[in-house]
């Protein structure tokens, strides 16, 4: 009985979005489609939750373990609340005729296809299958970024497509090299591509091949994570696509790419003769934090600004996992969860703000706390949370990371703290103009539309005040597996 629950959940995680995409492509009415989109995401979320209690046996293609369960749950939760936000958001886009009913049909089908691709990438036990899934996720998001067909949106989509393909090509070359290293010991065929076999027997692989492969994989999947210097697509894609897609990109897709990188890191780290992958990840992470921190000062577009903040936070998470050890990995995992929730909440708010104000230019948006008090204050709370101030969960994870870095590499910790402070003050500076300041505008927005944003921020605040024992134990267990 229990074994079948797990397999059912697994089938649900992949089948719901795949069938959903077909179904949504056939539904012309956008209200029905939006409601169905929310229902499908809720189903996926419940399947992801079921995997926490019961897991099917791993096969050569699919694998459910402690690590990907965390990623799946966070992903399904953000996917669900984004679908709720999207229902309110697209109604407005249709009214203002920025999108047509046909565009929306396409948009909903692509949304579910993206969910399918991400679940497949997270669940796959086969490094080739994982690559295919991440490529599919890239292609669906490219289509959605370009959906407005303005010149800026087309440029963003083209840039994303070209850089994304280059990244994905590098990652495939790295994957082929890993297979070559593995097939001498595991034999030819599928076995030499199964991640669990690779991770358990990588000690006997050829170290020089593994070294070379990790360089390709780090640059390849690092492009998708948005690490500096291969981040150039990320701000454009966030700024020019529909805001629900910005939320999904930051809250989900970046995590999936990071997950792929972590899977390979575990393979490489299993071989004692290989160059340690950690320092390379730490360097790229730190450079991303510092670079994004400085870039935040010059942003004039509100979505672009939060996109740079995503680069900063992905840098922090990569640094944490690169540093390794139980405490830093725990901090990285917690930070990833908190960042996903907070950043998607901020994008929900930003989506409504840009619709109400009719612009994304920060200079034209003023006094949100008086024009739309609830939205304005939620944005303030979101920025305070993402800046890493207590009592929010981001503070907890950043504090843990900084303290564990101080114990092991004090200079690195100082650089990290400098980066965090630069980014925080840039955000605080912009927030002042956005949220306060004089305005005589008054906006009305139904309160239910702010429910997803409120829910995310409440979760993040709750995690900052008190992390329940089972969650801590679970994350600690996962962190110990991440090395």
């Amino acid at each position, binding site marked *: 009985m229990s074994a079948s629950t797990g397999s059912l959940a697994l089938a649900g995680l992949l089948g719901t979005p795949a069938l959903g995409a077909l179904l949504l492509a056939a539904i012309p009415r956008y209200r029905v489609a939006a409601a169905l989109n929310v229902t499908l995401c809720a189903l996926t979320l419940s399947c992801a939750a079921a995997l926490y209690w019961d897991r099917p046996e791993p096969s050569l293609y699919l694998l459910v373990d402690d690590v990907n369960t965390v990623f799946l749950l966070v992903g399904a939760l953000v996917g669900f609340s984004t679908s709720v936000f999207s229902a309110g958001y697209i109604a407005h886009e249709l009214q203002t005729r920025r999108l047509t009913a046909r565009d929306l049909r396409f948009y909903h089908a692509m949304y579910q296809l993206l969910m399918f691709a991400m679940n497949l990438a997270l669940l796959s036990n086969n490094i080739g299958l994982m*690559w295919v899934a991440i490529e599919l996720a890239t292609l669906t998001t490219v289509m959605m970024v370009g959906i407005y067909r303005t010149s800026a949106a087309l*440029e*963003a*989509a083209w840039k994303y497509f070209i850089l994304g393909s280059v990244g994905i090509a590098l990652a*495939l070359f790295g994957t082929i090299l890993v297979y070559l290293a593995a*097939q001498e010991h595991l034999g030819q065929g*599928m076995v030499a*591509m199964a991640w669990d076999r690779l991770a358990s027997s990588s000690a006997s692989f*050829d170290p020089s091949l593994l070294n070379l492969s990790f360089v390709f994989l780090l640059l390849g999947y690092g492009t998708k994570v948005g690490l500096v210097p291969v981040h150039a697509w990320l701000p*454009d894609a966030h700024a020019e696509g529909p805001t629900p897609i910005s939320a999904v990109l930051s809250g989900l897709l970046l995590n999936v790419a990071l997950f792929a990188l972590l899977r390979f890191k575990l393979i490489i780290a299993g071989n004692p003769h290989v160059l340690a992958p950690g320092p390379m990840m730490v360097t790229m992470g730190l450079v991303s934090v510092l670079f994004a921190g400085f870039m935040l000062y010059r942003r004039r577009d509100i979505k672009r600004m939060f996109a740079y903040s995503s680069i900063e936070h992905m840098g922090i998470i990569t640094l944490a996992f690169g540093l390794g050890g139980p405490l830093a990995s725990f901090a990285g995992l917690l930070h990833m969860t908190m960042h996903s929730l907070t950043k998607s909440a901020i994008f929900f708010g930003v989506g409504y703000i840009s619709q109400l104000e009719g612009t994304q230019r920060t200079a034209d948006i003023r006094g949100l706390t008086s024009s739309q008090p609830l939205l304005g204050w939620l944005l303030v709370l979101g920025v305070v949370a993402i800046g890493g101030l207590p009592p929010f969960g981001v503070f907890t994870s950043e504090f843990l990371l900084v303290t564990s870095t101080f114990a092991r590499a004090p200079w690195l910790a100082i650089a990290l703290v400098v980066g965090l402070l630069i980014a925080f003050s840039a955000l605080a500076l912009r927030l002042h103009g956005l949220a306060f300041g004089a305005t005589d505008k008054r906006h009305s927005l139904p309160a239910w539309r702010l429910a997803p944003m409120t829910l995310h921020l409440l979760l993040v605040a709750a995690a900052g005040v008190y992390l329940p024992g089972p969650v801590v134990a679970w994350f600690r267990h996962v962190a110990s597996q991440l090395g």
Partner: protein
Amino acid sequence: MSPLDSDIAHLLAGSMVLLSFLLLYQDRMFALLNVFALHAFALAGSVAWQATLQRAPHLFITALIALLFKGVIIPVALRRIVVRLGIHRSIDTVVSIGPTMLFGIALVGLAIVVMLPVTQSESEFVREDLAFALAVVLLGFLMMVTRRNAVSQVIGFMSLENGLVLAASGARGMPLVVEISVAFSVLIAFIVIGIFLFRIRERFDTVDLRALDLSRGESL
């Protein structure tokens, strides 16, 4: 494996590198498409030869996909797009031909220097095949960054994918999943690009990406 067998494999893989160089300096759209078709033929030959040597019949499917899809269908389709858009005259490059070729030679040197030492445990044959494949991949990158025009960037991307397929077919016994997925992803990628070219045409009356570079999203 007899010396003749590996010589033929070298000839085919080496001709792909050579054709990648030819792609680099084409300045006419139709010539570019023709050379790309040849590139795909060389890939098909190379993969088919690998299939014979490794006694891996599934690789023949990959060879067939390369031959029909990349060698015939895509060049024909792109030719039609080029004709319809009226952009068959000449191609703008960012860097002039001379420096590009020198840089390409340096990249091939890099591929050999990087690949040969790290694959010492592999057979001579696999090692050199991989070095050729990496060279084709790097030349594809070079082409993508030195071209302004959308169609030639797409060709650069596909020649890069050809290099990946060459690497995958050279890796002994690599499961079919990957080869089909690579071919399939090219198909999807092509559809995406097709839509893009269409939309770009709708907006700007040109497929020159310089028109797009003007819109930085933050122009104010």
